[in-house]
């Protein structure tokens, strides 16, 4: 007979204000097998844990039920408590009477009854628990960083600094990401290239870092400490090892009409190109959609002109397979498409641009070499109007429901830079709210107003239309209670940002969870903000939520610290709740192996005694406990009921259900 202890937590008033915790403890005490039942204000506190430890020793408990918050929150805590008192950690069951009870009910009587039922159910399961022990698995001492923007770069540098090898996989031909496109950065106005390119060079020179540009993650298998990843290195038709980045080929290429992505399509580039002067690697790439040689076999000029014979029109995509202990997702963002916001005239008028386009127009390395001119006629704009929240905070279905967080600050930056460089230019900013939390941020914004005389108009723009060569920006001025029309030469839209479109595919591959806006979900919003709930997957930068450069770099370094902590271990404790097959029932049908996402199931031929001295050779499933993650897919698929999950056996689950249904 088991000796069970029940511990009911108040969670301050979180549980106790809706659930009569004393009654729950009292009623559960009467359950068969329960020898002690206690309640306490904070069971997770040191005193609470001491109460549990003492009870285990004093009453020689064989198992405990803690009625408290979600097991996601404190199961690990209470398992450690039990272990320190000499109890097997898998002899602990959590009844979630907070998230699944007190927080969602109002009526005390009902909530108390439900808490009792949840407690009974946990007791019923515990009675069938068996002590489990975890195996161990080795850790591959190498990290993969997906995405080569500032987030990925910072994470990679920090991990490499600690002595571990890192691969950066980047889809575009160079690392640098969106930050490489920026002109100046807030709140200190230093040039983005000046602070980013040294980091890019550091990556290239660090012997621990391997940069795989123009590459995509193709598949991910395995689990924390032991990921097996296939990477597709797309054919760039240029031998990376031979190319010196001299740029001769770019001069000679006759097909010059490709849109220059790096300059946000504001000018053109040849079919063979290096994205920008500081690109890492400084190696050319051929756009196969644009190259005359690759399209119809007629040209080959670049190959003729290349002094080092780096051009290879026959290059094919290559698949590389590598193993990693940890994966950092740093896939970043892009501005949203503005097709739902034609009231601002982005599709109709050339001189309505996005803020990222303005960055290029102001950048010394941009299409106008830093001379701010409007795209239509290359004239200097004399009146510039900014519109904030274009697609942010939009629940109408046209945009994104969230605040993009970076726009208020970069718009203040743009306004200030323009007024500084072109003092004759009038600058207006339409805003809903100016949001500037952050060190020296509000001061920065106020400088734009007070020192540089930027005109901030509280209200939104309703329409932008063209009249006599001017862009008429019609909007509300809510402070003056009037409708204003500002004839402008250039209109700049602070377009909302969204996670890079590749993130869904990546999230599926690494089984990381994602929210309704395609941002990756963190393991805990406050306490584990840089980890995915999936072990071994870490989140760096905007893929987790909108953030600016300082915040991104902080998060990237935090993420690296977590990765280093993992890679520093030689062995990882495996999950003890693993599947196992009852060989007497298994028919060797292979269904379980087909659904296993971790490749943990193999088949062995085993000899079985049939009686009368006869034996039979049968094919049966065998689970590798070091690989199994305990997801349970095999147990529900198995047609003969041979597969079961330790700690969550069919018998245990049925006992829980029975306890709930029993009145």
């Amino acid at each position: 007979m088991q000796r069970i202890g029940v511990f009911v937590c108040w969670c301050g008033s979180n549980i106790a204000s809706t659930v009569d915790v004393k009654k729950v403890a009292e009623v559960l005490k009467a359950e068969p097998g329960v020898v002690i039942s206690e309640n306490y204000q904070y069971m997770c506190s040191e005193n609470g844990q001491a109460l549990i430890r003492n009870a285990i020793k004093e009453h020689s408990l064989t198992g405990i039920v803690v009625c408290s918050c979600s097991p996601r929150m404190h199961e690990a805590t209470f398992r450690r408590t039990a272990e320190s008192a000499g109890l097997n950690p898998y002899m602990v069951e959590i009844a979630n009477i907070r998230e699944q009870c007190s927080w969602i009910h109002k009526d005390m009587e009902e909530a108390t009854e439900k808490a009792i039922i949840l407690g009974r159910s946990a007791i019923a399961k515990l009675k069938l628990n068996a002590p489990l022990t975890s195996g161990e698995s080795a850790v591959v001492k190498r990290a993969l960083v997906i995405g080569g923007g500032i987030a990925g770069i910072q994470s990679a540098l920090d991990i490499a600094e600690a002595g571990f090898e890192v691969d950066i996989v980047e889809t575009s031909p160079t690392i640098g990401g969106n930050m490489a496109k920026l002109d100046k950065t807030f709140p200190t106005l230093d040039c983005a290239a000046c602070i980013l390119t040294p980091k890019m060079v550091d990556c290239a020179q660090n012997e621990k870092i391997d940069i795989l540009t123009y590459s995509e993650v193709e598949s991910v298998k395995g689990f924390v400490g032991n990921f097996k990843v296939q990477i597709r290195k797309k054919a760039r038709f240029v031998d990376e090892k031979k190319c010196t980045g001299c740029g001769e080929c770019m001069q000679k290429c006759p097909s010059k009409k490709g849109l220059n992505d790096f300059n946000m399509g504001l000018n053109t580039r040849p079919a063979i190109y290096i994205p920008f002067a500081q690109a890492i690697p400084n190696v050319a790439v051929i756009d196969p959609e644009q190259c005359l040689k690759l399209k119809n076999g007629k040209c080959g000029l670049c190959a003729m002109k290349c002094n080092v014979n780096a051009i290879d029109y026959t290059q094919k995509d290559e698949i590389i397979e590598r193993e990693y202990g940890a994966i950092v997702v740093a896939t970043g963002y892009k501005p949203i498409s503005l097709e739902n916001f034609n009231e601002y005239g982005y599709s109709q008028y050339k001189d309505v641009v996005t803020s990222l386009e303005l960055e290029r127009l102001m950048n010394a390395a941009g299409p106008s070499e830093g001379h701010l001119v409007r795209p239509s006629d290359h004239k200097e704009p004399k009146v510039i109007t900014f519109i904030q929240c274009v697609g942010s905070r939009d629940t109408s279905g046209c945009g994104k429901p969230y605040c993009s967080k970076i726009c208020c600050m970069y718009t203040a930056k743009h306004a200030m830079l323009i007024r500084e460089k072109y003092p004759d230019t009038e600058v207006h900013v339409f805003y809903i709210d100016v949001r500037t939390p952050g060190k020296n941020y509000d001061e920065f914004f106020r400088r734009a107003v007070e020192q540089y005389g930027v005109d901030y108009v509280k209200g939104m723009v309703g329409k932008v239309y063209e009249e006599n060569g001017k862009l008429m920006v019609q909007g509300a001025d809510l402070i003056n209670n009037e409708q204003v029309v500002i004839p402008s030469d250039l209109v700049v839209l602070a377009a909302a940002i969204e996670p890079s479109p590749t993130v869904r595919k990546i999230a599926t591959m690494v089984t990381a969870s994602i929210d309704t806006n395609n941002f990756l979900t963190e393991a805990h919003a406050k306490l584990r903000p840089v980890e995915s709930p999936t072990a071994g997957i870490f989140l760096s930068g905007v893929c987790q939520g909108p953030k600016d450069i300082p915040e991104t770099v902080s998060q990237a370094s935090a993420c690296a610290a977590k990765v280093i902590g993992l890679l520093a271990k030689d062995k990882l404790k495996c999950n003890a709740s693993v599947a196992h097959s009852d060989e007497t029932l298994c028919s060797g049908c292979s269904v379980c192996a087909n659904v296993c996402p971790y490749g943990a199931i193999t088949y062995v031929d085993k000899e079985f005694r049939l009686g009368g001295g006869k034996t039979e050779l049968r094919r049966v499933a065998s689970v590798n406990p070091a690989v199994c993650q305990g997801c349970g897919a095999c147990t529900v698929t198995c047609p003969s009921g041979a597969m079961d999950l330790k700690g969550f056996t069919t018998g245990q689950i049925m006992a829980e259900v029975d306890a709930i249904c029993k009145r």
Partner: protein
Amino acid sequence: MDKLEQVKLVKERSGTDARKCMKCGKCSGRCPAYNEMDVKPHQFVSYIEKGDIDKLLNSKSLYTCLSCFACVERCPRGVAPANVIEAVRQEVIRVQGENKIQAEKVPEMIDETIPQQLLVSMFRKLNK
């Protein structure tokens, strides 16, 4: 009638949730009749939420709103200011003696070319 009841009725009739408004003013930024209004489109949403119905019942905007739905179209929060204006107008004209058009006066208001559709609209909008 009780003011609170009136506010509740107007809200129900409008079918729009004024609490969703984030006070960005885009409706008023877009409105083609803004300068003809004493109470502005965004204020209709604000006043109805605050329960200040008198300002709305007496507003001249009820008769200068063009019913063009520009405010409805552009609201980033799915609020429909035009629906509130319409609901308030209904609240006014549904009271006996509050019809804004007298049939006998119509001949002097119109000319030969006026489409009858306009007359029907006028009666539907201003009379009950």
